[in-house]
């Protein structure tokens, strides 16, 4: 299970890196999305991995923390997801603006001169 998740994170990250290093702004935004998935999962597992634990809704009465997964990383992931969404949106709009003003969708705002 751990191995599966680790490999998954790795693959997502690799795809993200590859795309982020591409010259086209749309590829970059795709890469950013993939990377944010990977990073979210990574934060999530920083509280270690628990399967077959009940979700983090607790009944009244004394609580045995060992029965539950670590809630803090989940809260962090939530915040991270939101911020990631916001920045993605912003980047998308900047991408459009740059495409509109410079006429190209190259990340540098100008086509790379071919030599």
């Amino acid at each position, binding site marked *: 299970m751990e191995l599966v998740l680790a490999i998954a994170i790795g693959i997502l990250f690799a795809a993200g890196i590859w795309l982020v290093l591409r010259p086209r702004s749309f590829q970059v935004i795709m890469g950013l999305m993939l990377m944010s998935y990977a990073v979210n999962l990574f934060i999530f597992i920083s509280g270690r991995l628990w399967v077959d634990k009940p979700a983090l809704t607790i009944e009244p009465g004394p609580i045995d923390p060992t029965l539950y997964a670590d809630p803090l990383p989940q809260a962090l992931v939530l915040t991270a997801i939101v911020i990631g969404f916001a920045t993605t949106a912003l980047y998308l709009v900047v991408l459009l603006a740059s495409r509109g003003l410079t006429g190209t969708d190259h*990340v540098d705002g100008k086509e790379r001169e071919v030599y």
Partner: protein
Amino acid sequence: MFWFDHLIALPILLPLLTGVLLIFVDERRHELKLWLNAAGILATLLVTIGFIRLIGNGHFNGDTGVYLAANWIAPFGITLVIDRFAVMMLLLINLVAGASLSFAYTRWSRLEVHFHSLFQFLLMGINGALITGDLFNLFVFFEVMLAASYGLLLHGKNKARVSASMQYIVLNLVASFFFLIGIALIYAATGTLNLADLARSIGELQPTQRTMFETGAALLAIVFLTKSAIWPLGFWLPVTYGAAAPPITAMLVLVTKVGVYVLYRLWMLVFASDASSSTGFGSQLLFWGGMITVGYGSLGLLASQDVRRLASYSAVLSSGIMLTLLGLNQAELTGAAMFYLFSSTLAVTAFVMLIELMERVYSPAAQMLAITMEAFASDIGAKGNTGVIIPGAMVFLGLSFAFCAVVMSGMPPLSGFIAKFGIVATLLMLSGDIGPSLNDWLFIAALFTSGLFAIIALMRLGVRIFWATGHGATLKLHLTEALAIFSLLLLCVMMTIAAGPVRSYMDRIGDDLSSGDNYIEQVLNRGAVASPSSSGGK
């Protein structure tokens, strides 16, 4: 819990509130917006000064004000921490912010909607990053800061700005991913996010956890180094500064400084205490990175043909010097470093604002003249033995340029010189009889060389702009703009005159940072307000 403890949250809340209120105000009522904005900054400044007084009078025990947001004790809740270091930075930030607002008033703030709100949000982010005591909260405030800076960078959109901000945004997004990974690693290793708790627990880490922690710390370091434009990671800086509107560039300079601040804070708090091999390694890395940055910056200064690049390279230079000082890993140097940070920041921001005035007088094209024109110019041009009469605004411009140049290049007598003198003197003082180490010598040499290069570059530029092409040029100078620049330079002068007290205050900062235990103790022992309904954590 005294009334003044609640003040600690204000540096974050005041800008937020102001920004929100500014959203309500209609764009057409520009004056009102401006006054609201100014009022927000002024209030923050007053609070800051209040902090100085409070700390000075020892109202906060341990001279460290701790605020438990939402009333949860550390390390569980989020704590805000105020000490001299934070207060100094707050002061600097808000002073510069005020200046750049007054500069932006005439032109830039009318260019697009929501300038003022974004401005305040940026301040909120910076202030939050300065005073938060929680790692993830730091990330959040960094994002606030960055998001606002994106917005402001795009302000008055044009080709250059948009493509520059593409670069800036993508780099910072990736850096933010690193930030998150680093936080996750640190949490996985230590199970806490509170800075004080981290500093406490670093001693009792298992080797495994320790390695994870160090990796996380390294990633965070990369993030902050990117922000503070260390050599191989700082190429975004000239591009961005070159594109942004001058008052915005001034604020971006502050953002850079925040990166440096956080590095100092974390390093001094968490690493300075523990003496593992990795720390030494890290400081070596930091030192050399800083040195390379200094070299890069000074070469860039020498090579730069136009004003904007010159400004950005001097910013690079100053953060390079700060990083090197940190890499020397002596807490006593912090005072000198802070002094330098102050004066260089003031000078660079003032210079950045001058840029626009210069460009208003001389077309940027004229600035791109090859330097050979100056070097081998045959004695062409008017030969008569009568000088050119300079209009008043031009006198102001020239004088402020000269002031900036003097401070930035560390020439006597202004604060730049005091700062450099302080650094070298402290280094010599610390070295004692054995004399400074090789690294110290290298650094001193770099310091002087960079100063020389700055002199040459600035002089060349000044001569070209003010003397070579200055025939009857007239400048429309608005009072607010003049005021902004004047006040910044005035601060430099005051720092020079009051060098003694200022410097000793900065040294207190150094002492605070070097004694991290006090910070840890204050934060972790801070009790929450007991509530009738519930007990314990609350």
